[in-house]
């Protein structure tokens, strides 16, 4: 195949004869790269070893004692944070120009083991008692600080997840007391507000040029939280009432989806246009069923709705490049 390609390149005078000969020699004599294979084996080995060690510690916990394990985890966490701190770059509001892969992974390791450590302390020594909010809030704050200081998007999404958990934890008991209702209908409303707030933070960070590249994470997580919350209201049955009327939720979803598509057009992002299409489709289908239920004699419409609407979605996707306005190098 190499020969064929080189011949056709030569035929168009795109490369010189020496270059073609050189490339042919290179292709014939280049060594066989085992880069990915060796790396996969190495990470497989690390996974096996850590699983095996974890099992061994778990089985011998009586002889080892909890203090040793807490100490070990704390040591690993401290080592991760320490390495990331030693390799730190000066703080900017822009994307870090020369990131270090090792430091990024070390920070991730430190954050994950910090979570394990706190969970272990709470489980074994009941460190935080019943103040669960504090238990969740503490790592969240640490993660937010780390994400901004060390410019790490993975840690940022962990921090946002922690924030959502904190909001959930601190809201849920409250509503259980005030409304005597354990289904907590307004948890959905809180999630909707939280999601919209996160999306707003993302937009602001883009417009103000404060960690512009964090905007994607904020918007992705925020819009998903908000849309999922609206979807739960949409799909709640007649017996367990949602926090808002389903039709309103459907309209809200359509509005949010339109906003996502608008944003995707602006930033040439495929993910957001897909999210918008997916959620919008669910909402439109729901409205369609409502209309059919309200007006008798329209049941036949559904037979044509499904084929036509799916064809519509396919056409939309086929022309996605035009909608997203062609920025194919940008990927996501």
């Amino acid at each position, binding site marked *: 195949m190499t*020969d*064929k390609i080189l011949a056709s390149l030569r035929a168009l005078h795109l490369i010189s004869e020496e270059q073609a000969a050189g490339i042919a020699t*290179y292709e014939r004599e280049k060594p066989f*790269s085992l880069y990915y294979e060796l790396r996969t084996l190495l990470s497989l080995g690390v996974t096996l070893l850590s699983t095996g060690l974890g099992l061994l510690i778990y089985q011998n916990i009586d002889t080892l004692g909890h203090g040793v394990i807490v100490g070990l985890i704390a040591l690993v966490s401290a080592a991760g944070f320490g390495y990331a701190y030693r390799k730190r770059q000066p703080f900017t509001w822009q994307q870090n120009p020369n990131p270090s892969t090792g430091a990024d992974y070390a920070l991730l390791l430190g954050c994950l083991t910090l979570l394990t450590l706190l969970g272990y302390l709470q489980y074994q020594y009941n460190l935080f008692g019943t103040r669960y909010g504090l238990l969740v809030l503490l790592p969240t704050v640490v993660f937010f600080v780390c994400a901004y200081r060390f410019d790490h998007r993975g840690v940022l999404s962990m921090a946002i997840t922690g924030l959502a958990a904190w909001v959930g934890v601190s809201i849920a008991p409250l509503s259980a007391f005030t409304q005597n209702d354990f289904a907590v209908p307004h948890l959905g409303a809180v999630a909707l507000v939280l999601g919209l707030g996160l999306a707003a933070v993302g937009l602001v960070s883009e417009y103000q040029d404060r960690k512009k590249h964090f905007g994607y994470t904020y918007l992705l997580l925020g819009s998903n939280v908000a849309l999922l919350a609206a979807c739960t209201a949409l799909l709640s049955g007649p017996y367990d009432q949602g926090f808002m009327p389903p039709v309103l939720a459907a309209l809200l979803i359509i509005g949010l989806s339109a906003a996502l598509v608008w944003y995707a057009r602006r930033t040439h992002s495929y993910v957001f246009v*897909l999210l918008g299409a997916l959620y919008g489709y669910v909402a439109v289908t729901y409205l369609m069923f409502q209309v059919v239920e309200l007006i008798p004699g329209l049941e036949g419409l559904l037979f044509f709705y499904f*084929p036509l609407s*799916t064809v519509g979605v396919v056409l939309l996707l086929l022309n996605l490049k035009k909608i997203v306005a062609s920025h194919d190098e940008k990927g996501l």
Partner: protein
Amino acid sequence: MTRKAYNEQGIFNRLVQDTARRWAKTGLLTPEQAESVRQAFPTDFYEPHLFVKVALFLFTCFAVSGVSGVVFLFVSQGASGGSHSWEWRLLLGCMLCGVGTFVLLETLITSNHLYRSGVDNALLYCGLGYAGATLLSFYSLALPNFVDPEILLGRGVLWLYLLPLLVLVVLAAIRYADPVLGAVSFFLYLGIVVTLLLPSALGKALLPFGLMLACALAYQVVQWLTRRPDYLYYRTCVRTVKVLALACFYLAGNYLVVREVNALLLGLPNSVQISFAPLFYLFTVAIPLLYLYLGLRRADRIFLHTGLLALAFSLFTYRFYRSVLPPEWALTLGGAVLIVVAGWAMRYLRPARHGLTAEPADSPGLSILNLESVVMSHVAANTMQAPEPGFQFGGGSSGGGGAEGKY
């Protein structure tokens, strides 16, 4: 209408672009040269992002099933006054849907330049599904009373069912060169071999050897296909079948598989020791090592990866019957051994040795070409405009002789 559905020149251009990008990354071409290659070998295939592909595939499947639901509705309602039985209606509906899907597929490929973009995959599989359903409902009409496949298997005539399906899928694979179709036809072929062997006692006894032989034969056939001039069109399809043939060759000789399938076929509650057991021990150990050796020797990633997976399955086979270590110790020791071996190999192969390297493929360090001098000579050659009438580089045939591990 040509024999191949997709534009062969476009596929070649795509490969040229990819290769030029790779060479430019290695430093064998200048960025300007890579750019002019990109312009000289254009592709107009519609190849969206992977997410979009998946979404297109799913929604096309929904659309096809929605439309065919309407078609089936009309077929079953339309001629309700007629004397046709529901089987005839089913046959008619399947035929209509199948023909419609294929017509749509062909139109979309030519008009929208689809090339494995999700839509064409979905239409192809749906169309083939309807074609297969047409075949089956035709059988149920043609035969007076539809017989259970298990009885057919016992009488050794199930292959009469599978053969037309195989022919159908192979024809589609020749036209569309789809890897999934390659895999399906390979499994249909294996199924035919099994249904031919199973009914007789001798065939049952020789089943592992028969399957190994069939896999080796299939590998030889696709290996022979790689020498065709239009191999590039079928490359992914051929590679898929190769992987499957190697994997099934190993599995057919694996001790665990043979022993458990033997118990299953004889209806035993517990698997017992099989005859020729030492031979199957040998297969279980030797085939992965052979694959690994061949993979490293011939720089063939297909052999290498299949060999690694087969080795893992061989270890599993061993542990399945003999418990040597408690699992946590096995995990710990195995992990430690893997880390040591991989780490040592990474260090040992850092300058390339024995034709192997731990560097990433096409890293600039591996380039043996001094680009500057070459570019200078290229400039000189261009200014002189020396015509080269008899320039024949390798005659333009693909003399690869197998996958060369070019990814």
